[in-house]
């Protein structure tokens, strides 16, 4: 199964032991209409997750930072999307070495309409691009309400090329973790552990918000959070289902697992909420959905539906208690990116090593084969991604801080709110008392106010 995956995923004509399915595909190197249409839809679904994330994150911050927080996701659509086509895709999926791809496909050189597996090469690039976008945007949850906007934009651009693309190559692009046999169906390590560890490092480098620990920093729009969680779940069907790279049984399995694991996760989260606080919270349910989705991501096409329910139910438990613990520490990972994505990804990757079914993988996980080998490989992939992502995120941010003269907004700007300071807009402007400026006086006044970025 793994080899099938890599063959279709990497699509570089690498000669791998071929299973029956791959041999068929090799024999008829043609584009499948069914596969292509599902991937076209999946690409659109995954792209929608980033605006969904914007609502999820935007609702969780104070109203004076709502736009800035949502912009941190939306800007990734532009920056990370463009850089993916310019170089990221080639670094991730170019032949290269075990550690990273090459620059042979920079500016999409040679990426055309020929089949890559059973879908057009260009579509594969686009589908993978949507993953690069949301992974970068995920990190923003750790730095909201205080990071200057332009340094943030530069950061996610560099991060996508230096951190995301090589890690993607390790697992999916023919790199060393894929060769070892690490199971990561749609990005438990590549996307979620990667972003989660980067987030916690970014939160440490930036330091806590000035009001953190002194004031209750409450979500300004919980309905937005629920809307965002709903959009994320909807898009995740493309994220996991599309990662089958075909409209086949495995896609159906991945999609159903993406339904069941978060359902079980929400169920358990609800019980934990009820028994620890006495009330089931809306923000809690939204978080439970996301953690369940994160956890099933590496496992989606490898576990049975029953395994998915167990996985979702078990995986959310550490995240629940990490969030409770984290808010009492000085670590201002503001929107708990590590607890949701880092921890969820770690649990998902480890449980994949236990629950992977021999029906859908070569040997199956610990519970089927009785051997710890797969679990060890899963743990190694988590550790390697965490160390690489954490180290380089730290390096990028430190250098960027020196070059740009500080990553953080002034304390007074933080008080005023990042919406006005960084963007000159408000999320909820009433228009009362706003005076229209004519073109002649406008630029001078715009330049006259303190510019946050």
């Amino acid at each position: 199964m793994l080899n099938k995956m890599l063959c279709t995923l990497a699509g570089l004509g690498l000669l791998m032991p071929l299973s029956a399915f791959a041999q068929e595909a090799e024999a008829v190197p043609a584009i499948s209409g069914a596969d292509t249409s599902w991937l076209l839809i999946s690409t659109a679904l995954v792209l929608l997750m980033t605006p969904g994330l914007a609502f999820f994150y935007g609702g969780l911050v104070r109203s004076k930072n709502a736009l800035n927080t949502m912009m941190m996701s939306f800007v990734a659509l532009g920056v990370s999307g463009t850089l993916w086509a310019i170089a990221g895709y080639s670094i991730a999926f170019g032949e290269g070495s075990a550690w990273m791809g090459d620059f042979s496909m920079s500016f999409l050189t040679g990426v055309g309409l020929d089949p890559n597996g059973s879908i057009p090469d260009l579509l594969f690039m686009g589908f993978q691009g949507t993953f690069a976008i949301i992974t970068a945007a995920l990190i923003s949850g750790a730095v909201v309400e205080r990071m200057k906007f332009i340094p943030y934009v530069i950061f996610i651009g560099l991060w996508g090329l230096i951190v995301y693309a090589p890690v993607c190559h390790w697992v999916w692009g023919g790199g060393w973790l894929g060769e070892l046999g690490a199971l990561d169906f749609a990005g438990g390590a590549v996307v979620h552990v990667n972003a989660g560890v980067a987030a916690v490092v970014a939160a440490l480098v930036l330091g806590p918000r000035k009001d953190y620990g002194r004031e209750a920093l409450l979500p300004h729009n919980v309905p937005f959070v629920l809307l965002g969680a709903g959009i994320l779940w909807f898009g995740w069907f493309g994220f996991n289902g599309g990662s089958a790279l075909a409209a086949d049984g495995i896609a159906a399995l991945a999609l159903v697992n993406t339904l069941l694991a978060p359902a079980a996760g929400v169920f358990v989260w609800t019980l934990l909420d009820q028994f620890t606080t006495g009330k089931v919270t809306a923000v809690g349910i939204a978080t439970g959905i996301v953690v369940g989705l994160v956890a099933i991501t590496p496992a989606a096409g490898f576990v049975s539906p029953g395994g998915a329910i167990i996985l979702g139910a078990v995986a959310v438990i550490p995240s629940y208690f990490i969030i409770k613990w984290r808010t009492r520490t000085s670590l201002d990972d503001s929107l708990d990116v590590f607890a949701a994505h880092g921890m969820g990804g770690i649990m998902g990757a480890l449980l994949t090593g236990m629950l992977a079914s021999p029906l859908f993988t070569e040997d199956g996980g610990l519970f089927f084969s009785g051997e710890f080998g797969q679990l060890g490989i899963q743990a190694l992939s988590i550790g390697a991604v965490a160390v690489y992502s954490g180290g380089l995120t730290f390096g990028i941010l430190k250098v960027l801080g020196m070059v740009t003269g500080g990553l953080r907004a002034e304390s007074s700007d933080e008080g005023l709110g990042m919406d006005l300071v960084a963007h000159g807009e408000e999320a909820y402007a009433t228009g009362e008392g706003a005076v229209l400026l004519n073109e002649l006086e406008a630029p001078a006044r715009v330049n006259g106010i303190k510019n946050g970025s």
Partner: protein
Amino acid sequence: MKLVKAIVRPSTLSDVLRALYAADITGLTVSNVRGHGGEVEVVGTYRGTTAKMELQDKIMIDIGISDDFVDIAVDAICKSAFTGNVGDGKIFVLPVERVIRVRTREEDMAAVTPVR
């Protein structure tokens, strides 16, 4: 009795409340208001429409208080609402004719004395 009306920045509200509670002043009313106090203007741009925000969000705190506590309240607010920039706010102290506590119909001094 006096009515202390303080207008402060929203970002300082938590500090102001903490300072007032620390000074044993617990009966107060907070409103979201908009006003202008000569501070640096904020300019917003929405798809080519550039607008100067004449009115800025402020917080108004009303405190009915006995005469002895006026200076304490003013001092607490001045210290906690201070940022040093134009727009930190104003405090108005007004005379009050009568105060009635609804629950008990206590009047004046008795009505502004906190319930222990």
